[in-house]
């Protein structure tokens, strides 16, 4: 993040210079986005199965949602427990808009429905934000929780709007067809989501690098000092909140288009928690963090929920693990290595990666042992009537026999003890790499 600005702010002389550096700047700004656009276009050709396409669509929605959440948490330092309100209401208004368009034969193509979500998210962001952003910190977090509960409970009362238990459904193919697209096949929906995902990513990235975006960081760091340089932190927080609502609304509308169904669970605590988890696991300190988090969390949600009933337990463990051992998230861990890469410390870096791989073996063994223990306990306590055996990693385990239990515990404890012995090795390799990088920096 800040390293990008480094190059562009070097000297005032560069500003008065010829158009050549400007052109180079434009290319450098655009290049990553062109790469992302190409990746979005090519991905469904690589992962072309129906389920893969569904997963990719969900990832696109989650990326927008998680990035919008990070405008609050990462950029402005506002911990919200109710961000799904704007996602869900965006979804509901989008689906009602779709049904109205179908009913009245209005000339609005499906492609533009996410704008309805954007408007709804912004509107509710303005309404609820005007209350909640008067305060920061714990007070803000509590108000966001209260507002989340308020909307979730009204969703069960206001049945006309929220559709009660079964929710509100639509048929996305019945809207005006433009360019012969009826959005029946998932691939067309995927590209619609990918397009809006890219637009939102670029917009949110650009907002970070505006006077407002920088003041969000300043308010996060020291709201009081921001007041003494002319800024009202309440206004900064309010604007961040409203804009985060806008993008969450887009994500909600995309979800409504994707599922053709929204129900009250969409405004509830579960998606509010999930988006917090995605942003945090990915890393709130980098723009790329929530993107990584959204991809991982969506992938885990899809695959884990197929494999085990207690997938949420593993989510909880993942979250605790990240909070305890990598509070800057996966992106933070990756970014730690950027200085090494910059310093061209390739040899120590490759040695470091090698030690990671060595440490990974016992870590995976520990994880396998842990999973086996959890699954066997779960099976014995909840599903014992289904028979004595479970299938785990393509191995059939007899939960009534003592052997798999011992094997699992040996894996868990033995693996962990071995894992701990790799820590000093990794630490030494890290130290060497940093020393090497610093040495290289001094020589320059």
């Amino acid at each position, binding site marked *: 993040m*800040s390293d990008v600005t480094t190059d562009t*702010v070097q000297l005032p002389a560069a500003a008065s210079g010829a158009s050549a550096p400007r052109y180079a700047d434009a290319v450098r700004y655009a290049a990553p986005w062109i790469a992302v656009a190409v990746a979005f276009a090519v991905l469904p050709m690589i992962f072309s199965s129906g389920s893969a396409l569904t997963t990719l669509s969900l990832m696109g929605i989650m990326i927008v949602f998680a990035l919008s959440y990070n405008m609050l948490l990462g950029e402005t330092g506002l911990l919200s427990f109710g961000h799904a309100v704007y996602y869900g209401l965006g979804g509901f208004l989008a689906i009602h808009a779709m049904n109205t368009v179908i009913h009245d034969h209005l000339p609005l193509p499906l492609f533009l429905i996410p704008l309805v979500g954007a408007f709804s998210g912004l509107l509710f962001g303005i309404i609820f934000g005007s209350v909640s952003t008067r305060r920061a910190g714990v007070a803000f977090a509590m108000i966001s929780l209260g507002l989340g509960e308020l909307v979730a409970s009204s969703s069960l009362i206001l049945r006309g709007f929220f559709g009660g238990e079964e929710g509100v459904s639509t048929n996305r193919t019945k809207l005006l067809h433009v360019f012969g697209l009826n959005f029946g096949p998932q691939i067309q929906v995927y590209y619609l989501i990918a397009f809006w995902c890219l637009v939102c990513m670029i917009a949110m990235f650009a907002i970070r690098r505006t*006077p407002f975006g920088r003041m969000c960081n300043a308010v996060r760091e020291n709201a009081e000092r921001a007041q*003494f340089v*002319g800024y009202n932190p309440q206004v900064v927080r309010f604007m961040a909140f409203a804009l985060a609502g806008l993008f969450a609304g887009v994500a909600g509308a995309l979800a409504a288009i994707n599922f053709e169904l929204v129900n009250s669970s969409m405004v509830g605590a579960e998606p509010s928690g999930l988006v917090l988890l995605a942003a945090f696991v990915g890393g709130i300190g980098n723009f790329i963090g929530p993107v990584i988090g959204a991809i991982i969390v969506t992938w885990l949600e899809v695959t884990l929920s197929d494999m085990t009933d207690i997938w949420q337990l593993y989510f909880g463990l993942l979250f605790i693990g990240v909070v305890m051992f990598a509070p800057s998230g996966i992106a933070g861990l990756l970014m730690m290595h950027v200085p090494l890469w910059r310093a061209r410390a390739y040899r120590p870096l490759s040695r470091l990666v090698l030690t990671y791989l060595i440490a990974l073996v016992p870590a995976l063994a520990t994880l396998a042992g842990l999973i086996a223990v959890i699954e066997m306990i779960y099976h014995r306590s909840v599903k014992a009537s289904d028979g004595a055996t479970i299938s785990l990693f393509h191995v059939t385990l007899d939960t009534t026999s003592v052997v798999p239990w011992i094997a699992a515990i040996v894996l868990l404890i033995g693996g962990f003890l071995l894992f701990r012995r790799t820590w000093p090795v990794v630490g030494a390799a890290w130290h060497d790499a940093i020393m090497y990088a610093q040495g290289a920096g001094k020589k320059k």
Partner: protein
Amino acid sequence: MSAPAIELADLHKNFGATKIIRGVSLTVPTGERHAIIGPNGAGKSTLFNLISGRFTPTSGSVRLRGEDVTGMPPYVINRRGLSRSFQVTNIFPRLSVWENIRCAVLWSLGYKYSFWRGIDGLTDVRDRAEAILHEIELSDRREVQAGVLTYAEQRALEIGVTIAGDARIILLDEPSAGMSAAEAARAVALIRKVSQGRTLIMIEHDMGVVFDLADRISVLVYGQIIASDVPARIKQHRAVQEAYLGTAA
């Protein structure tokens, strides 16, 4: 004649039953360098907090260039042309030196809450921030996180953030506190330079700095100004010597 930069009229501030500021009236004309001295706990920082809008006075009024700003929030007072530094360094710790200065420049150049203009393309912001960095001699530390600067560098950044918005009235709260003699001398040179053509009010314990810089000195003791005069006469003031200089020197 234009209105004075700052006019305090019978200012009081109580915290519960404790009276910290007990009727301060002070007029600082435009362009003056004014020092406020006084023993610890006299209420000097509280007085700054009242002027800059951090605290609301219990009674009395604060006028800025003729306008009543009593009880207004800090950002309004800042926009009216007053900027202040803090005794305990008060910067944006996890932002780079460059971002610290740039954030302090934005409002005064009229960018307000703009979320549609790329900040890196704003040449006036960049040029002004460059100039400030150069002035506080932190140009080669620009990418360093403010929180990991040395103490003296943080104090320089504190002054940089304070002057970045080009405020006409500047309040400095112990700018040389905790500095070595050499660092303090550099700080004085910096303050002299940046207060050129502005109104400066500073709280300072170092009498060398005070008598070197100030056009006028006010002595605050137990929430009241007991003397306000040019340095030469403050030195000879009997009550001041008893209350402050006598014990200090």
